């Protein structure tokens, strides 16, 4: 059993200034997950008639990308390839102080407490993160052969869960890793190549419009990404963007 001191960011809504509130939580089982620890805190707060701490979470198995807390200076805590929901309390020491903050970025306004609005990521995908095919009328699946190596790289990029940790940890609040992962997934497949130049330009334009910062190649995003998405995807997008701007007009 652990006794912990939690410093949690509490903020009533988007307008409220917000502040840290300290909670002492005792008797936390070591097998509990981090979010279950917060559940226990919340259950106690409810019984005391206090407002429980709001945070995003859903699948609790590391795939939906809903959860995302900045724990002791790291998005999803300091362990590699781990989402907040996969972090367990046995990784903490008895008596430890844990500081829990929301994602902080201009593009992710705080909704309440530890919950932020990440709809900007959806808007990025809407700008072109898909192959523009309609339902039906598509060729047989095996009429398109894909190099296995490319398919594997594509899948690596496609494992992005859209949690926003890359933006949250980037000192520039840049979404390049997120955008380039989606771009690369499609760029590496023949199906996606048809509109790859349009896609890269549209997605980059939307990214700038939404107020994300510029990538300065610190690679903090890759270090903190719970799915280990590589920054080589960013290089691919830079390259294709350049090609789109220079090579494509020449072809026409």
């Amino acid at each position, binding site marked *: 059993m652990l006794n912990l001191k939690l410093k949690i960011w509490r903020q009533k809504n988007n307008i409220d200034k917000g502040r840290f509130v300290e909670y002492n939580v005792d008797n936390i089982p070591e097998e509990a997950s981090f979010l279950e620890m917060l559940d226990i805190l919340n259950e106690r707060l*409810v019984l005391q008639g206090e407002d429980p701490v709001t945070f995003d979470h859903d699948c609790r198995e590391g*795939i939906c990308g809903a959860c995302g807390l900045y724990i002791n200076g790291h998005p999803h805590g300091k362990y590699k390839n781990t989402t907040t929901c996969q972090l367990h309390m046995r990784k903490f020491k008895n008596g430890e102080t844990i500081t829990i903050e929301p994602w902080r970025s201009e593009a992710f306004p705080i909704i309440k407490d530890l919950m932020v609005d990440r709809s900007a990521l959806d808007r990025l995908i809407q700008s072109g993160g898909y192959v523009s095919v309609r339902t039906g009328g598509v060729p047989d699946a095996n009429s398109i052969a894909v190099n296995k190596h490319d398919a594997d790289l594509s899948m690596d990029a496609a494992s992005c869960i859209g949690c926003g940790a890359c933006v949250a940890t980037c000192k520039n609040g840049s979404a390049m890793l997120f955008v380039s992962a989606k771009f690369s997934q499609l760029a590496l497949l023949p199906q996606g190549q048809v509109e790859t130049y349009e896609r890269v330009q549209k997605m980059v334009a939307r990214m700038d419009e939404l107020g994300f910062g510029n990538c300065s190649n610190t690679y903090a995003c890759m270090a903190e990404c719970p799915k280990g998405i590589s920054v080589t995807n960013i290089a691919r997008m830079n390259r294709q963007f350049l090609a789109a701007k220079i090579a494509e007009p020449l072809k026409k």
Partner: protein
Amino acid sequence: MKELNSKIPAGPLSEKWTNYKAHQNLVNPANKRKLDIIVIGTGLAGASAAASFGEMGFNVKVFCIQDSPRRAHSIAAQGGINAAKNYPNDGDSVYRLFYDTIKGGDYRAREANVYRLAELSNNIIDQCVAQGVPFAREYGGLLANRSFGGAQVSRTFYARGQTGQQLLLGAYGALSKEIERGTVKMYARREMMDVVLVDGRARGVIMRNLVTGELERYAAHAVVIASGGYGRVFFLSTNAMSSNGSAEWQAYKKGAMMANPCFTQIHPTCIPVHGDYQSKLTLMSESLRNDGRIWVPKNEKVAERLRKGEIKAKDVAEEERDYYLERRYPAFGNLVPRDVASRAAKERCDAGFGVNNTGLAVYLDFKEAIGRLGQKVVEEKYGNLFEMYERIVDDNPYETPMMIYPAVHYTMGGLWVDYELQTTIPGLFAAGEANFSDHGANRLGASALMQGLSDGYFILPYTMQNYLSDQIGVPRFNPDAPEFMEAEKQIREKINRLMAINGKQTVDSIHRRLGLIMWNKVGMARNEQGLKQAIEEIKALRKEFWQDVKVPATSGGMNNELEKALRVADFLEMGELMARDALMRNESCGGHFREEFQTPDGEAMRNDAEYSFVAAYEYQGPDAEPVLYKEELKFENVEVKQRNYK
């Protein structure tokens, strides 16, 4: 008394869907623009339906409970998606997929629906590949397949252990495309509170904006519910935290029927429960059973020492181990269907052979596989799953066997729908896990993704047109109409009532108690006495909930506790209906196992003469018993047999 009309088209099984499409009514493009459709949920079924409607030119409003449509729980599906492509040339066909699904469902599904599902399975793969879903490939560049439980062919397409994620992101991409085009309007962080009926047809919904706490009214010509299943009645399940059955339940209360509510899938390979604070359970893919061997100790005393932690699994000698699945089912061994494997685990644990400090776990051992294939091969095949296990349990599965136990995973039951996926309320459709249509009493692995996408991409776009074809003259509805205002008022009253209780118990603590009743009495094994007790206990708990729950008022609109309370209020009613249905069905079939109805060696015993029907329930009021309707199941294309896996 209503008549259940499943509207199955005439003609031979393999031509029904073709005939339907040939004769259905259409809506011309100019008129589509004048018609509005509401879709609840953005999982595989909801997202694919909304995107397809948008492409066709309808005005679509789509709602999701999460902050983004990409987070719907379809994303967590691991294993794969079935299709009758027969790429491996191993003798697969549409008929065989149809047959396996009907048999896997223990002959409690509708033939025509299942056949259509098998037919459409191939279109789904084509569609997803065209969208850029990165399915696994062979070195030659063509698609790879793997085997799954309940089939003798290799027909499962997959994207590592994240197939659901990739298919959902494909559908989410299609949806995003339509949002950008402006045909679909997306509303995130909204939960459906009620369906609004105007003159007997579904014409809109009342949504609660989870951020502001406001109730919002939306009108449309038709409504699709694709909000998933209701497995969280059991509190602990592999479902996501926000998965709930409330949308279906409101539809039920408005007159849509619930079908086969007791058919619940309990998945055999989940990480066992480790404490009473636990919020959910984690599934370990079925594929592990390809190489893992399941066992418990032969001797009760050894089991007890294991439970106390005096000895470790590896200290148990080979001859002291009981590989009970291999013993009981020599033909299928560790690869028996999910319902069979789950029950066998429960049987061993109940008999006192369970391990883990709770006694509620069995071993899944890879020692033999590591010896045979080498650790490297095992790592390549299952590395990510082993890692996931280690992170949760803090035990290295390469060295000590995994501990697993069954957990609630999927609900085959759901809103009753006809061949067009329309419920008994005209204009109200249900798709994906929210309907009951295709899996009978037990769903095969890798079939849920197939069903969600076929409903959304390929069935609803046709059947919806057929419904709307005579609605083109109906003007847009006003969401301020009295029917809408009345529905909103009732919800506001319900919320106020909940907030006013100010009792002493948290929502979760009551939900947990409901879960225990369900798990113990309406879970893997059920009997008449237990079910009758469960009904009474749930009634009493419901009463207690409405007298003693504590929902704190919060500053601002967002109130997670209120959200949970509204859902649990529905679960407390749903659980009772599930128990009633289980009590009514005096047979064992698929995931529904009644202890009174088993063969001498403990296998499920169906009663085809009396129970070969879909049980559909009609709501009669808060404390009144629902009315049961029966849709007879006719099997003209398969021979109904007792399942045998020995």
